[in-house]
């Protein structure tokens, strides 16, 4: 009696697990399929390459070239990651390899809190600090004039925002390098810095790469904070001191409004689909690079 009861429980819990996994996968596919179906009407009017590579965005005349938004998103993401990745790597190296262990223990909750702050707070902080900083200090230094709502501001806010997120992963990664491995290198006469460069960082490379990949997908999809400081002007930005209009901001600002324009919601769905695909792409890259590179190190 007891045995069969346990067996039933076992079976039940196994089923629950499978059901949970299936639910996640189905939900995931469901989002993709719905986005695709909703976006498809716009394909009948315009070719995909026109949509992705033309900057002609005139919804009223049925022109949905999204280049301005795509370029803005790429630009902002690039700035954010170019700043945050090296900062995180150096900070993680310092905290795990040089600093007193107590400092790391002290910093860990701070980083966690920063990583968990709602993004609207980063947006507000961006408006109060970064926007004036860009308009009053950085832009004049480069001989530019701007109100501060620029690609650069969005990139900076985003950089600050993903730093705690990336830093957390990198600390975890660097901390997992065994002490004995470091000692092996030191025993061969390598200096501490050589050991970090050639052994610790190299060993952690898959993890570092995936942290950056996850940072990219996080940055690319971030909506509110970026929307608040990017300026949101529909034009392909020529330099970082011009305003931009990233994809997530486009969707968040316009969905539900102006829906009377034909195909407008399809175009927004397409923007969402692009976002969805890019974010998944970088996530997959990040995760598969862990697996592939781990084999090699």
């Amino acid at each position, binding site marked *: 009696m007891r045995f069969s009861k346990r067996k039933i429980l076992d079976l039940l819990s196994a089923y629950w697990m499978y059901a949970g996994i299936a639910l996640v996968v189905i939900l995931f596919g469901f989002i993709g399929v719905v986005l695709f179906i909703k976006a498809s009407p716009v394909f009948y009017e315009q070719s995909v390459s026109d949509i992705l590579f033309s900057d002609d965005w005139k919804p009223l005349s049925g022109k949905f070239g999204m280049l301005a938004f795509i370029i803005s998103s790429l630009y902002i993401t690039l700035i954010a990651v170019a700043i945050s990745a090296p900062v995180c790597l150096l900070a993680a190296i310092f905290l795990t390899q040089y600093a*007193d*262990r107590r400092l790391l223990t002290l910093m860990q909750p701070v980083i966690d809190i920063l990583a968990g702050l709602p993004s609207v707070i980063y947006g507000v902080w961006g408006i109060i600090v970064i926007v004036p900083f860009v308009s009053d200090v950085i832009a004049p230094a480069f001989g530019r004039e701007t109100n501060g709502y620029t690609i650069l501001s969005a990139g900076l806010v985003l950089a600050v925002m993903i730093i705690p997120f990336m830093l957390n992963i990198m600390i975890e990664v660097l901390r997992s390098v*065994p002490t*004995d*491995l*470091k*000692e*092996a*290198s*030191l*025993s*061969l*006469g*390598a*200096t*501490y810095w*050589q050991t970090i460069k*050639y*052994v610790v960082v*190299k*060993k952690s*490379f898959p993890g570092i790469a995936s942290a950056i990949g996850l940072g990219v997908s996080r940055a690319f999809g971030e909506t509110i904070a970026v929307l608040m400081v990017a300026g949101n002007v529909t034009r392909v930005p020529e330099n970082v001191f011009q305003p931009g209009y990233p994809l997530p901001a486009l969707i968040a600002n316009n969905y539900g409004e102006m829906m009377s324009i034909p195909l407008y919601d399809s175009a927004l769905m397409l923007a969402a689909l692009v976002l969805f695909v890019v974010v998944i792409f970088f996530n997959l890259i990040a995760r598969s690079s862990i697996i592939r590179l781990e*084999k*090699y*190190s």
Partner: protein
Amino acid sequence: MNNPKIKIQGLDLHIHKQHILKGINLEIPANKITVIIGPSGCGKTTLLKTINRLTDEYSGVKHSGSITIDGIEVLNTRNGLTEIRQKAGLLSQRPYPLPMSIFNNVAYGLKISGRKRKSALRPRVEHLLRMASLWEEVKDRLNDPAASLSIGQQQRLCLARGLAVNPDIILADEPTSALDPLSSQAIEQKFQELSGQYTIVMVTHILRQARRIADYVIFMYLGEVIEFGSAEEFFSNPKHEKTKAYLSGVFN
């Protein structure tokens, strides 16, 4: 003993106020195998790592006393850490191949100290891999990651890697404890071959292994050296009660 390779005098070591090594005095002879035995936690690993200054990397370490290699002070000096560590290489309990190819593992020590030109590396690497009896097994896959080797092969790779920087002394911390019997035997044999040119200090928990290869034996207990002597005398006629007890298996 005249002309000991390593001379340790009045060595005390504390980690965070914990007294780990207590008043160690030792004279380790050149070109012999000296085996350190003793119960777990008695400070064997710490003693080895003090000799090549790896204990410098631990937080809260304080030491006093002196260690000399060939009459040159190595403990109380600020320079030449690279030279000291290359002179006394460490072979650890489990092999830790560096995250790079088999070839580069062996070449690593040469490259970082910038001592060899690229063209001279290849024959040197081959020579070292032959010394560690690994060449035949890896000659066609030198660019494979070192992690792809078996554990036993990895340990021989670590040996070759350590020999690359021309050490005089090999500090080996239970170098066979993670290996299968055949690989263990290979390492033991290597040590016996090498002992003509190298001073080998080896920690082991396996008494039979100590009997097989030791020229001299050190018995440690709770951070102290209890007994030190030639293997013959040590095993046939131990002087100290604790040594006798350990040898008869009371501690294990």
